[in-house]
């Protein structure tokens, strides 16, 4: 029930000390390139490069990464199959009309579209995972401030971030206490036990909120929250790598214009 969190992986990754803006630019740039691409090749290329960066530069465990990737991949795969079946085309390979309003067909065009969208999803996902696995939340707060997100939103986000972990810890303890006393042994039992856990967690978080206010008061809270600014300059190597990646990505987008699978 409680595996290693994405955030924990991000806190320990090999690219932790690289300037946050550079990492964000790489991830967001990759997403934009995937959207601009008109062929399946460019997103695949981007996914390959970013996955290599996650595995080799950020040194994320390959098993962790594969597990993370597989969940949305299944979803994308099923969606692609639906697209292949329902979007029509001229070169029909196979067709079936089970109902008067439903026509299923596999055509050359539909395979091309389905595969293209599937690759786009892979590209976008690897870009998102690149950001999530290389940039911990704590670094994003400073970027949010620079992007002029209102202060109270950032402060709230920071307090929520901190309390999520405290709450999770409590839920974990309650859950273990319940399992030790055979709380989830039958289906009926597990429903009541789960409800009890929710109640206990709610009361615990309520208490936690009271304590938080007291702790802040005890330290003279005056509506201000410190932010840990960026103190890691964007080094020449990281910026050069970023530019190289974006240029190569753009070139791939341009060169592969109009290429299709079949």
């Amino acid at each position, binding site marked *: 029930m409680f595996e290693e969190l994405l*955030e*924990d992986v991000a*806190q320990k990754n090999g690219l*932790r000390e690289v300037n946050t803006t550079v990492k964000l630019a790489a991830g967001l740039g990759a997403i934009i390139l995937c959207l601009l691409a008109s062929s399946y090749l460019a997103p695949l290329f981007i996914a390959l490069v970013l996955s290599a960066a996650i595995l080799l530069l950020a040194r994320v465990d390959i098993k962790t990464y594969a597990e993370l990737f597989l969940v949305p991949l299944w979803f994308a795969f099923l969606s692609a199959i639906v697209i292949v079946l329902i979007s029509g085309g001229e070169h029909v390979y196979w067709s079936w009309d089970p109902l008067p309003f439903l026509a299923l067909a596999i055509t050359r065009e539909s395979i091309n579209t389905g595969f293209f969208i599937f690759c786009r999803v892979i590209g976008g996902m690897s870009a998102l995972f690149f950001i999530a696995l290389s940039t*911990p*939340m*704590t*670094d994003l*707060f400073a970027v949010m401030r620079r992007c002029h997100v209102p202060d109270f939103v950032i402060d709230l986000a*920071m*307090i929520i*971030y*901190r309390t999520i*972990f*405290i709450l999770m*810890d409590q839920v974990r303890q309650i859950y273990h206490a319940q399992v030790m006393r055979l709380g989830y042994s039958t289906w009926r039992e597990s429903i009541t036990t789960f409800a009890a856990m929710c109640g206990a967690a709610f009361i615990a978080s309520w208490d*936690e909120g009271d*304590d*938080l206010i*007291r*702790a*802040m*008061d*005890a*330290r*003279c*809270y*005056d*509506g*201000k*929250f*410190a*932010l*840990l600014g960026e103190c890691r300059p964007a080094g020449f190597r990281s910026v050069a790598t970023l530019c190289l990646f974006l240029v190569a990505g753009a070139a791939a987008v341009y060169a592969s214009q109009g290429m299709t699978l079949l």
Partner: protein
Amino acid sequence: MSSIVLEARDVRYRYPRGREAITGISFHVRRGEKIALVGPNGAGKSTLLQMFNGMIRPDSGIMLFDNEEIRYDTRSLRKVRRGVGFLLQNPDRQIIAPTVYQDVAFGPVNLGFDETAVKEAVAVALRQVGLEGFERRPPHQLSGGEKKRVAIAGVLAMDPDVLVFDEPTTGLDPSGSEDLMELLDELNHDGKTIIISTHDVELAYPWADRVILLADGRIIREDVPDVAFGNPVYVRMAHLSVPTLLELSVELEKRGFTIPERKPRSVLDMVHIIEQHTQGSCCHPQPGTITVCNVDEGETGTLASWVKARKGLAVGAMGTRAKQCAATESIPLEFTYGVIDKCILRALRGQDSLILTTGRMVDRVAVRVDAYGKESGNQVTVIFLDPARRSL
């Protein structure tokens, strides 16, 4: 030095719809004192502590900080809370921010420091607790002892005069507790007044200047540790136990040993008492030496070879920075707490030892050894290691 910094005058407090938690308490704390508030669970320790920085307002009676009555408007409370740093029992409840830096900076930022002052305050506080390099770590990844240190740093960054710790050693392993008590000593040496609440008598007995025994919301006894813990009646009333050293000394006294006016507060004192009885026969004729090294001076990396060249030398480290230095130079440490006493004990057995320490604590070694020499008549030589001669 004997000016009063905190005072309570007949304070009473009753929890809403509850029993009376504090039933008329008066006492005072002098600047630079180490006070232990000792009592069983539910004695009102935490409630009393929270009155010191105005978190709880007494129903009647007054609290004074710096000889001024504490008032409960926002401005006055800010002043009090800046002067009295409070540490909750559970560091998780004290740490607010998502990273160590942000949490330690919380107080200074809200006190309106500018950015460079905040950075400076955070750096100093993290250095004091030995957590340099932890700035970007999120608190949920730290160990219990580290979290405690972060919480302490957060309080220290506001530079309070008085530090109030609610059960500082709960949840820490024995070596962690000893480390923490050493840190408290270090802070006290820097001029901070320290008040702790605890029910660990063994910890409070050697540490405190003064002990306040508390039970059922009242003060049972307020005195130096050996008197406060020495009376079995009070100790029983407060649901505590007599510290082992004190119990032992009482037993020895009954068997004809001469116990000095000042009761033994450490193993060293105890050994001295036994030694006198046996006319010094268990003392080595040629006492060993204690070498003191200030790790802030001289080049790093030279110390390890110096230590290696001397066989049979035991190394102890006093203070967080000295311990870090030993770790970076990979010098194995024999003693990490109660270092001076243990080195004197070694010297009495005729063995040499080296104490790694920093800044002001260098003098403390000499003072402590001198004081021991005067008291016992056993002279132990303290040598200050010249950084330039380390390579010899």
